[in-house]
């Protein structure tokens, strides 16, 4: 059964030509989907629509069969920038989603410690965000998105500003965490190799529409060596051709 379903979603900014034009897409439970495309093709808008941050002009978005009209409590969202609250310690940043609803319990703190440990930051839990590097801040943002154990996670180019090695580490961390909680993921990136490495299924976007879809059949869990195998490169090339093809 489909978990998240986008049904002919159209979105336009006041009267201009649509930025999202009749997009349909389905994510099943536990699947990791990547959305790739050039800058300005509407990736972020589509993600915000799917998360309920924006309302479509036409069509509908259904989460477990229910129409999405506002952000559901069972989703997590990671923004392009880490968007941590500078005046809260790392641990309180991770617990923010919970502390907005109720006072965090001892179990919540344990879960937060657990998550921080998994992203390798347990030593930093009492630091302030300004004391962390960019990669560490992104890790905190991911831990924060996972603290409510969301069934569905949206990520908007969360690693775009990081160096290659840190990015690869975080990709592995993310995959491991999502497998652990059986989280469904919609991940935006403009990095083809990142998409192929992470995704079960890739959607290529251009001019507000999904123009190409590709299932990635690589063994799981992914490992570093796979990045240098011919099969991996072949898939990257396929995606790249799909992206190029749209220019003509």
């Amino acid at each position: 059964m489909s978990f998240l379903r986008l049904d002919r979603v159209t979105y336009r900014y006041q009267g201009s030509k649509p930025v999202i034009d009749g997009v349909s897409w389905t994510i099943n439970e536990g699947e990791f989907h990547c959305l790739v495309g050039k800058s300005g093709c509407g990736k972020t808008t589509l993600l915000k629509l799917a998360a309920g941050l924006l309302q479509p002009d036409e069509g509908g978005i259904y989460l477990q069969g229910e129409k999405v009209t506002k952000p559901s409590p069972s989703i997590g969202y990671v923004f392009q920038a880490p968007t941590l609250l500078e005046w809260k310690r790392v641990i309180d940043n991770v617990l923010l989603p919970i502390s907005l609803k109720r006072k965090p319990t001892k179990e919540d703190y344990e879960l937060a410690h657990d998550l921080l440990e998994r992203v390798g930051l347990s030593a930093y839990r009492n630091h302030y965000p300004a004391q962390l590097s960019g990669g560490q801040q992104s890790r905190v943002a991911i831990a924060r998105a996972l603290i409510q154990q969301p069934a569905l996670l949206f990520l908007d180019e969360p690693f775009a500003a990081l160096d290659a090695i840190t990015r690869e580490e975080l990709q592995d961390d993310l995959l491991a965490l999502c497998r652990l909680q059986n989280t469904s993921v919609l991940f935006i990136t403009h990095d083809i190799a990142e998409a192929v490495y992470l995704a079960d299924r890739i959607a290529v976007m251009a001019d507000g529409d999904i123009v190409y879809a590709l299932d990635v059949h690589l063994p799981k869990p992914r490992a570093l060596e796979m990045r240098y195998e011919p099969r991996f490169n072949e898939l990257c090339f396929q995606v790249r051709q799909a992206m190029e093809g749209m220019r003509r």
Partner: protein
Amino acid sequence: MNRTSVYSLALLVLLLLGWELAARQMSELVLPAPSVVAATLFEGIKSGYFWPHIVRTSLEVLLGLSLGSGLGLIVGILMGEIECLRKLFFPYVVASQAVPKLALAPLFILWFGFGMTSKVIITALICFFPLLENTVTAIQYTDRNKLELFRVLGATRWQTLIHLKLPAGLPNIFAGFRVAVVLAVVGAVVGEFIGASEGLGAMIIASQGMMDTPLMFSVLLLLTLLGMVLYQIVHFFENRLVKPYKKETDK
């Protein structure tokens, strides 16, 4: 003590020496020497002559400051949060910014009498605007990404205000408060200039009448001290509340 603060102290000594030398050439009525001023100041404090005036002016400043900045903060939050209020009142706020508030002092004395009330109100009025303006700006220009984060987390409007907009705007609000503190002393003193029998401002006017320049200088020193103490108090709180998370080097 580091090198710059040594130089800074040396500069003070140099300035005092220069003052002392210059004062020797002039009548005490024009420029009293620092030694004479210090003696007057010490005498006045020891005899208890200054105390009621210091207390009076400090009280006016503190009451006016808390009233004015408290109201400025509350109105600023309301105007920052509620768009129609902001659109309705902002032209008036801009217009009232242009009114020289101190020019209203005689009017307030007419309305509220020669007692403390008129000075507190003048001070409050002066402190109101820097707080109002900085709070409105701080609330209005909260980081859009963080606002979206709070929407995703399903935060209510109140929670967004308390947990995001106010803490994020705190450095800005404090900047306004620092301006207000300095202005508060000005407000109280000018109020006392125009009509008061007690307070440091009234003492300046009295010393002018008595042609007692050393007394005037010692009152000026007291006022400077009052302003500096208040500023340092604000600075202390700012350090406690705002700085810890800004940069690790600021600790």
